[in-house]
């Protein structure tokens, strides 16, 4: 596997580089082309959203970055390494669609899980738990068990868990997809604050056009059958984004372009 040069002379460091990336699942009904010829570069510090209808391969792409799926063609490098090497060096934190908290662990113990596995000392664990719990506004809920928290709080805990160790890359697979709109708005603006506070690179899969436009510096529009990238939009919105930025003409223009991209990729009528 060839490795893309991670750092050009002047530009920012490349975190994710995909070239002609393809992934085909063999199923009983024949091969399914989940990804086909995906070319994409993600620089350090970017907030990249992947948007598209179900089956467009956005989650598969994220899982491929995480080395949870193996590409069948093309090259993919993470921080100049193969996905497997990147996973082994714990280069990323992954936030799943569901919080995936372990129900027998308290919230702080859930946040401590990656720290225990990665061998952090007890004092370092305590310090990091404190820091990340503060970061996601869950201070005071350390001793609660997951079922004692609302869905939004559980998902915040799972974000804290992904932030607890030193990964510069955060992979988020529709983390707010199961939450209602009010909670989602709130968590979106919190996520932006968190992003600017931590300077991480974030890859964010979503179904929602407003969410993608509101959060991202770069929006990757994908279409299904086979999963491919139809448009890559660099956002012109300022980095500081209050929620009412969503009423501005600039925002609406970007949203319109995303919608056009989705329409070009066909079959996205059901989503506003």
């Amino acid at each position, binding site marked *: 596997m060839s490795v893309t040069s991670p750092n050009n002379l002047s530009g920012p460091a490349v975190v994710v580089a995909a070239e002609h990336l393809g992934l085909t699942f063999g199923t009983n009904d024949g091969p399914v082309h989940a990804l086909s010829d995906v070319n994409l570069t993600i620089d350090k510090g970017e907030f990249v959203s992947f948007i598209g209808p179900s089956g467009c391969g956005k989650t598969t792409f994220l899982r491929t970055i995480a*080395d949870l799926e193996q590409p069948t063609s093309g090259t993919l490098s993470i921080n100049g390494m193969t996905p497997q090497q990147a996973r082994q060096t714990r280069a990323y934190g992954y936030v799943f669609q569901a919080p995936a908290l372990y*129900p027998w662990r308290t919230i702080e113990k859930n946040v401590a*899980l990656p720290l225990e596995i990665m061998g952090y000392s007890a004092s370092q664990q305590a310090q990091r738990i404190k820091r990340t719990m503060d970061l996601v506004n869950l201070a005071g809920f350390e001793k609660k068990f997951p079922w004692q928290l609302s869905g939004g709080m559980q998902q915040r805990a799972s974000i804290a868990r992904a932030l607890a160790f030193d990964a510069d890359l955060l992979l988020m697979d529709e983390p707010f997809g199961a939450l209602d709109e009010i909670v989602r708005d709130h968590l979106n603006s919190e996520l932006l604050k968190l992003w600017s506070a931590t300077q991480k690179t974030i890859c964010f899969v979503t179904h929602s056009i407003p969410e993608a436009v509101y959060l991202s510096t770069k929006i990757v529009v994908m279409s299904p059958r086979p999963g491919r990238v139809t448009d890559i939009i660099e956002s012109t919105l300022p980095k500081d984004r209050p929620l009412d930025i969503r009423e501005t003409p600039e925002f609406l223009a970007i949203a319109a372009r995303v919608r056009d991209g989705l329409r070009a990729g066909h079959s996205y009528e059901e989503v506003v």
Partner: protein
Amino acid sequence: MTRTLPILTVLLAIVVLWYLAAIAMNAPWQTDVYKRGGIENVPATQFVLDTWNQEKPVLPAAHQVLTELWNTTVMVAPNKPRSLIFHAWVTFSATGLGFLMGSLLGIGLAVLIVHNDATNRSLMPWIVASQTIPILALAPLIVVIGFNIFTGTLHIPTDPARLMSKAIISAYLSFFPVAVGMVKGLRSPEAIQLDLMRTYNASASQVFWKLRWPGAMPYLFTSLKIGVAASLVGAIVGELPTGAVAGLGARLLAGSYYSQTIQIWSALFAASILAALLVIAVSLVERLVGARMGVRPS
């Protein structure tokens, strides 16, 4: 009140049925007794009371069994062979040892099966097949051969040897529910919980101790409750074929040799009380573990 009332209603119904059945089943013998003694015109109430107080009834009445239980537990020193507590202890020690061995074996097999595809395919059919052999056919074999090996080849004294042979039968019966339950339990973590471990590059033992094992706890305790009851059955069955002199099984057998139905029934009661206590003990441990693991109170 809402919980005890239905239970008491059912209990009352059982007792009523029991006493009615005792009249019907003991009546022929009672008529015989009257006939041989030349007694005639027995009042109905006298007849009924007599059927409930025979010395060797076909079906002893509840109060006869309870009296026998009282006399053989509270009224006798627990180290005397007349004491049911003595016999219950003998059976319990084999049950406990067998349950311990069976549970460890079951858990060990489940761990092997979950972590290795070859053992999964090769062991599972044999584990299932092991339970298709009637334990009654196998028990005498194990007890006799096991006892001979323990005392003869291994030079173990007779008492521990007898205990071990019975415990092996208990273990044979109890490992199965534990193995099957734990295979399911260790496989119960969801795909994303396992994916999460993979993103941390966690080792197999970390995945086991931090995810699979705690995730399997509810399954473990359900299996243990079945396993402990099966262990008791195994221990009693192990006491039947060998002419054992101690244990609830021996008590059952002796009772049936001499038609001591009251003794049989009180041994049966003792066995079911012991089973209930064992299951309650497992449930208590389950509740303690559950409280530590933050189980949502239902």
